[in-house]
């Protein structure tokens, strides 16, 4: 009988332990948000004299990024100058919106956000407007407005929320050009000079004309552009004058209609490769002898060309022409409202975006096009600063483009717009629907995806 009691007691105990363990997970999370609230005030109380030296900063930061190549390098650079700080980098790629949903749910949960997080051009406008997301950097104690005079204005403006407050800063400017393979250009167009190529691609009519020339000269083997999406980047990031949404109203800029026509002509006449961007075939075509041109923004030299054509990465096989100004991409970083160490977090963000010394070193080390005006001027005039992939001084090439970039084209809806537009565009290009149907279907899709917009 005693034995039975013992067994029962044991069973009861196990039950209790098991049930208790179920709640253990919950209680832990539940207590965190409460602990999170007070630090909201901490920046004000912890105002530091501006003279604090890098070595004086101590502590740890958590940094979320979506790119495994860039994130750790940024942290390393910071830790190089601030030896007593440790930055823990966590990378979540944004495949299937994983990064964005991770951030959104951490904000919603009220806990789990890092101190500093990065945002890409495709979703930065959404992030800066997310309640509970980025800290307002225009306000004290950050006073970011005082630090960004040297940065390219369009990159600063993209980091502002709809009320004009600065929420995230960037270290890059991403004007774009058309990258081409010099050997193919020489063979089919008779020249590989960037200025001459720029002239050949300066208007839609000229693009089609040049594409026909390439087709003829190569007997149909070579294509001017790898796909129509590369042209889309030029149109959406520069040729048009109005964003997708203005005053909550959905707009299709006339230039986008022009893009639809030119893309259709190119497809029907076999003047482009028909390969969709970021597919394995698209990456592979970088190294082939068929597809001549890609849309190459500043970062594309490294991340589109060099990584996909390693053999020629140092050989100067490529060149960049700048027929039409546009921009694509860029990364911003800001401080999470949940951060418990905002002083240090701000030091990190400030370092990334405004530290001239670091930005110059970063530009030289990574080839990245930084958004610091003085650094751009310096490197532009430095004839020894030549990028081996394209055999050009990239600052000289892209520098004049920067001023022409229109930062007002970006909206928080751009990623959804691109996806819907391109999906239906492919059907149109395949000849399955008419242009009228295309526009009709695009509008219906926008209406369904974003019911708050006025679609006429």
């Amino acid at each position, binding site marked *: 009988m005693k034995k039975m009691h013992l067994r*029962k007691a044991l*069973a*009861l105990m196990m*039950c209790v332990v*098991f*049930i208790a363990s*179920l709640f253990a997970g919950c209680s832990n999370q539940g207590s965190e948000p409460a602990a999170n609230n007070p630090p909201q005030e901490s920046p004000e109380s912890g105002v530091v004299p501006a003279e604090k030296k890098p070595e004086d900063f101590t502590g740890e930061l958590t940094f979320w990024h979506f790119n495994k190549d860039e994130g750790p390098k940024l942290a390393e650079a910071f830790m190089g100058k601030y030896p007593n700080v440790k930055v823990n980098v966590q990378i979540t790629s944004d495949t*299937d*919106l994983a990064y964005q*949903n991770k951030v*959104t*749910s951490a*904000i*919603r949960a*009220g806990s789990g956000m890092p101190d500093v997080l990065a945002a890409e051009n495709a979703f930065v406008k959404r992030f800066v407007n*997310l*309640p*509970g997301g980025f800290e307002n950097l225009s306000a004290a104690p950050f006073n970011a407005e005082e630090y960004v005079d040297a940065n390219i204005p369009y990159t600063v403006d993209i980091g502002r929320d709809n009320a004009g407050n600065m929420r995230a800063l960037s270290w890059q400017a991403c004007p774009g050009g058309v990258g081409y393979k010099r050997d193919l250009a020489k063979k089919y167009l008779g020249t590989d000079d960037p200025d001459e190529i720029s002239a050949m691609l300066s208007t839609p009519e000229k693009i089609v004309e040049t594409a026909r020339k390439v087709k003829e000269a190569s007997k149909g083997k070579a294509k001017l552009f790898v796909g129509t999406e590369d042209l889309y980047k030029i149109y959406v990031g520069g040729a048009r004058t109005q964003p997708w949404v203005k005053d909550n109203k959905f707009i299709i800029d006339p230039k986008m209609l022009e893009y639809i026509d030119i893309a259709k002509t190119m497809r029907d006449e076999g003047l482009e*490769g*028909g*390969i969709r961007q970021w*597919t*394995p*075939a698209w990456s*592979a075509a970088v190294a082939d002898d068929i597809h001549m041109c890609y849309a190459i923004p500043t970062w594309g030299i490294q991340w589109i060309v060099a990584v996909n054509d390693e053999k020629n990465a140092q050989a100067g096989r490529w060149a960049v022409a700048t027929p039409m100004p546009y921009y694509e991409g860029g990364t911003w970083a800001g401080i999470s409202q949940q951060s418990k160490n905002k002083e240090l977090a701000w030091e990190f963000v400030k370092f990334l975006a405004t530290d001239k010394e670091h930005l110059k070193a970063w530009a030289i080390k990574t080839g990245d096009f930084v958004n610091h005006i003085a650094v751009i001027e310096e490197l532009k005039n430095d004839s020894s600063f030549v990028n081996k992939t394209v055999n050009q001084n990239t600052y000289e090439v892209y520098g004049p483009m920067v001023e022409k970039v229109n930062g007002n084209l970006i909206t928080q809806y751009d990623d*959804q717009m691109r*996806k*819907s537009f391109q*999906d*239906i565009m*492919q*059907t149109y290009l*395949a000849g*399955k*629907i008419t242009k009228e149907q295309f526009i009709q*279907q695009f509008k*219906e*899709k926008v209406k*369904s*995806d*974003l*019911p708050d917009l006025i679609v006429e």
Partner: protein
Amino acid sequence: MRSKSIQKDTYGYLFIAPFFIILTIFVVYPIIYSFGISFTKWDGSIVPPQFVGVENYKRLFNDSFFFKSVGNTWMMWLGCIIPQLIMGLALAVALTDRKLKGKAFFRWIYYLPNLVTMASVGTLVFFLLDWQSGSINRILLSFGLVDEPINFLQDIFSSRFAVSFTLWWMWFGYSMIIFMAGIRAIPEEYFEAARVDGANKWQTFWCITLPCLRPIILYQVVTSLIGGLTMFDVPYVLSGGNGAPQISTLTMVMYLYNTTFANYNFGYGATIGVGLFVLVIMVVAVAYRLINRKSLYE
């Protein structure tokens, strides 16, 4: 003695408590929560959901995308389940034949596709069907069967067919295994009696195997239906997420997912979820009736 029996009851509750607690946390609560959210407008941020009454339901009943997604789901499911059952049954009959050699090998081979995750298979088929670089187009071109590569995934019929075919390829082996178990469970005497009566194989199949398998067929249809209504991975990967071309491969769950996690419309996403839930409940109710009707085994 009496107190002892009461104690036992208490223990009983304690022992089943973990299950019910887990069920409540992970199933009941989310269902109730989603139902609540479906009456709100919410972008999933820290701004609290805003109550909008039945606005979302009004939209649902007038939403051509939703009805399209329901139609697509059914179409692609039917295109998969019919050949799946026929093929599964045919293979099961063949592979339970005593005289056939190498049965184990074929069973294994046919079941194999079911072990791969759906998303990987979807990606594989996507690459096979690619317009410019897909193997199928390469083969067709090299044999001179076509002059221009075919853009399979921009054609409504071939896109839906690709989804159905992929699901069929993954699941006929599973059907086969279930049917084989069903056939083995048919009493041998029936077949003996048929042989004594001089029935040929075809007659045996129609008069004994098939009627005896009726409950198994129903079971397969019902389980596949529930899986089919929640179809997601393969069409998601094949269409690049948006149900292209022309919303022809958008399934109900894809629509729910996109509305919620790509367009941040949590309220309406929950409404679609409720719609899906009601549909599944209705279908399952009908199916249960069919199954519980007196079958041959009772």
